[in-house]
């Protein structure tokens, strides 16, 4: 059994040296031999700069081969990688790199502003590796990505422990600052090994990699094919948003396994001209991250009848922990979303009521998960860590915060959330993070953000009030949000009021606002 994610690559490099490992968005293909060699070289470079076990290395790169080489190189050096959304506002990226105190950064030349150094606090970076040409001389010492992977020599030897951190994934935080979910090699391996047992991949498979690398779907996308010697087809950020070309890509490359959010599958269905393309090699379609409206899932299944569809459920903190296989024929009269199903074999699941008593019947309660894939904690967040876990008979259970109920035949059925987190296009959004961004607008006095169900998912509505004077325009507010928040967090609607409704205890009356949001057309 592997103890470290790099062992998957090393074993495949031995067994499948000349087979394609990663197909870059440019079309360039790296074999397993290439990938392992470049990752070894990068590890040696990082180690030479003093990066080692216990360290974090930020990766701010567009999706592609370089990013995959970086992840393996960093892990081989003994450190954990911290992927940062290449397309998100610079301030958010810098917040993340600063929060977890990276010792080194691998960064695209187009987004050097993200470096903590630029804000004066990151001068202790041991190495800054820059991918692509820089237009101006830099104030800091950097190495080009090509130089960093050029040096030859023996692979470095590091003592490896399954309990070392492999990566930190940042998700939206309720206090307004993203929080880092720490995952160890043991966490990731237990999940990937479960995937092997259900999806039975082989070296003949061709996996899509649609999700951004800072998103937890990428863990299956990257490590499952690498473990089995299969090919990983990395889909660029641009292609990923273009359903027509994406459908063509799936057909032309004869992909066999697809994994994305339901939002992307719905886009493919609505704009991809799917009937024009032969996808007969596609054998598995996985979706996760949000509820898939059944009418869209059914329409997709009619167009793509061959693959087996699975609904995967799990927060970043556990990765996938329950799953449901969708029946081969979805009845015409079914409206209810499919359940999230039963616990994966490497996890245990439990429903507790508000008083911590176990629910065994069909009442609603909070879903708790235990098992080897459960994360070790949030980076530097003692308060959240204390609240996240429950010790029960010596077992550590993670409180997902998701409300579910049990169905005798279908397993768990997702009901919703009790707190202010919502899911949109598969992303977790803490509404408080949007409010905090809005409060920075000089004209705004109050901001309260609520979510309301929409035809195809969730609509986010911001209710605002202003300090006297002319209120900002909606165009102005959207653009303002665009400078601080990733696109999926920008509210759909802005409603400006004289004063926000308050409860008798003078708190913002979110219930009243939810009602108003619901009735907005």
């Amino acid at each position, binding site marked *: 059994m592997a103890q470290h994610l790099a062992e998957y690559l090393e074993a495949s490099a031995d067994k499948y040296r000349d087979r394609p490992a990663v197909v870059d968005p440019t079309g360039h293909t790296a074999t397993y031999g290439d990938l392992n060699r470049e990752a070894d070289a990068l590890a040696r470079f990082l180690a030479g700069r003093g990066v080692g076990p216990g360290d974090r290395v930020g990766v701010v790169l567009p999706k592609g081969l370089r990013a995959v080489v970086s992840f393996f190189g960093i892990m081989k050096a003994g450190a954990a990688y911290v992927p940062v959304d290449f397309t998100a506002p610079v301030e958010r990226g810098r917040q993340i790199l600063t929060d977890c105190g990276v010792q080194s950064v691998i960064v695209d030349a187009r987004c050097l502003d993200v470096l903590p150094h630029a804000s004066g606090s990151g001068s202790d970076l041991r190495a800054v590796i820059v991918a692509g040409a820089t237009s101006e001389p830099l104030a800091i010492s950097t190495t080009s990505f090509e130089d960093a992977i050029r040096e030859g020599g023996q692979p470095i030897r590091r003592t490896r422990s399954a309990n070392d951190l492999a990566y930190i994934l940042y998700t939206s935080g309720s206090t307004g600052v993203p929080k880092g979910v720490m995952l160890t090699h043991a966490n990731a391996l237990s999940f990937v090994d479960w995937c092997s047992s259900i999806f039975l991949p082989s070296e003949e498979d061709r996996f899509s990699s649609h999700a951004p690398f800072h998103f937890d779907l990428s863990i299956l996308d990257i490590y499952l094919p690498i473990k089995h010697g299969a090919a990983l087809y990395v889909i660029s950020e641009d292609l990923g948003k273009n359903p027509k070309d994406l459908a063509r890509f799936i057909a032309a490359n004869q992909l066999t396994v697809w994994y994305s959010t339901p939002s992307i599958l719905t886009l493919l269905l609505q704009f991809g001209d799917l009937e024009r393309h032969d996808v007969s090699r596609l054998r598995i379609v996985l979706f996760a991250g949000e509820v898939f409206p059944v009418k869209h899932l059914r329409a997709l299944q009619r167009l793509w009848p061959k693959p087996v569809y699975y609904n995967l459920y799990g927060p970043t903190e556990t990765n996938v922990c329950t799953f449901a296989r969708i029946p081969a024929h979805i009845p015409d009269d079914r409206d209810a979303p499919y359940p999230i199903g039963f616990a994966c074999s490497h996890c245990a699941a439990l429903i507790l009521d508000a008083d911590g008593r176990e629910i065994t019947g069909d009442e609603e309660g909070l879903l708790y998960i235990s098992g080897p894939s459960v994360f070790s904690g949030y980076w530097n967040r003692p308060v959240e860590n204390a609240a996240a876990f429950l010790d029960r008979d010596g077992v550590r259970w993670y409180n997902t915060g998701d409300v579910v109920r049990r169905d005798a035949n279908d397993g768990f059925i997702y009901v919703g959330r009790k707190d202010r987190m919502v899911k949109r296009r598969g992303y977790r959004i803490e509404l408080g993070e949007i409010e905090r961004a809005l409060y920075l607008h000089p004209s705004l006095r109050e901001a309260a953000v609520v979510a309301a169900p929409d035809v195809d998912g969730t609509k986010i509505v911001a209710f605002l009030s202003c300090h006297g004077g002319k209120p900002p325009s*909606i165009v102005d507010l959207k653009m303002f949000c665009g400078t601080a928040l990733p696109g999926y967090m920008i509210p759909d609607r802005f409603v400006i009021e004289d004063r926000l409704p308050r409860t008798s205890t003078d708190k913002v009356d979110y219930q009243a606002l939810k009602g108003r949001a619901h009735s907005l057309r």
Partner: protein
Amino acid sequence: MNEIREAIRQFILATYLPGESAENLGDRTPLVTSGLLDSLAVLELTSFIQKRFGVELDVYDTSAERFNTIEEIAGGIVRKQGQVPSHPGGGGAS
């Protein structure tokens, strides 16, 4: 040309900026690079334009450099309308 700009403006206002007045969405207001329109909105707007004006738009036409303002979008439509309909387009092989 003015008619095309107004049709695009009205579609964007009604679909993505309900409640906003037309004067705040200028011909040169950046739409994509500013975050006003996301990728789904660009697809929906493209679909609207194709139906309304009978032109075919490909990935080249709708990239952020050519599709970022109402002025650019309207200009693209006018150019397309002046072309022979059988023009094969860029195909999107990038």
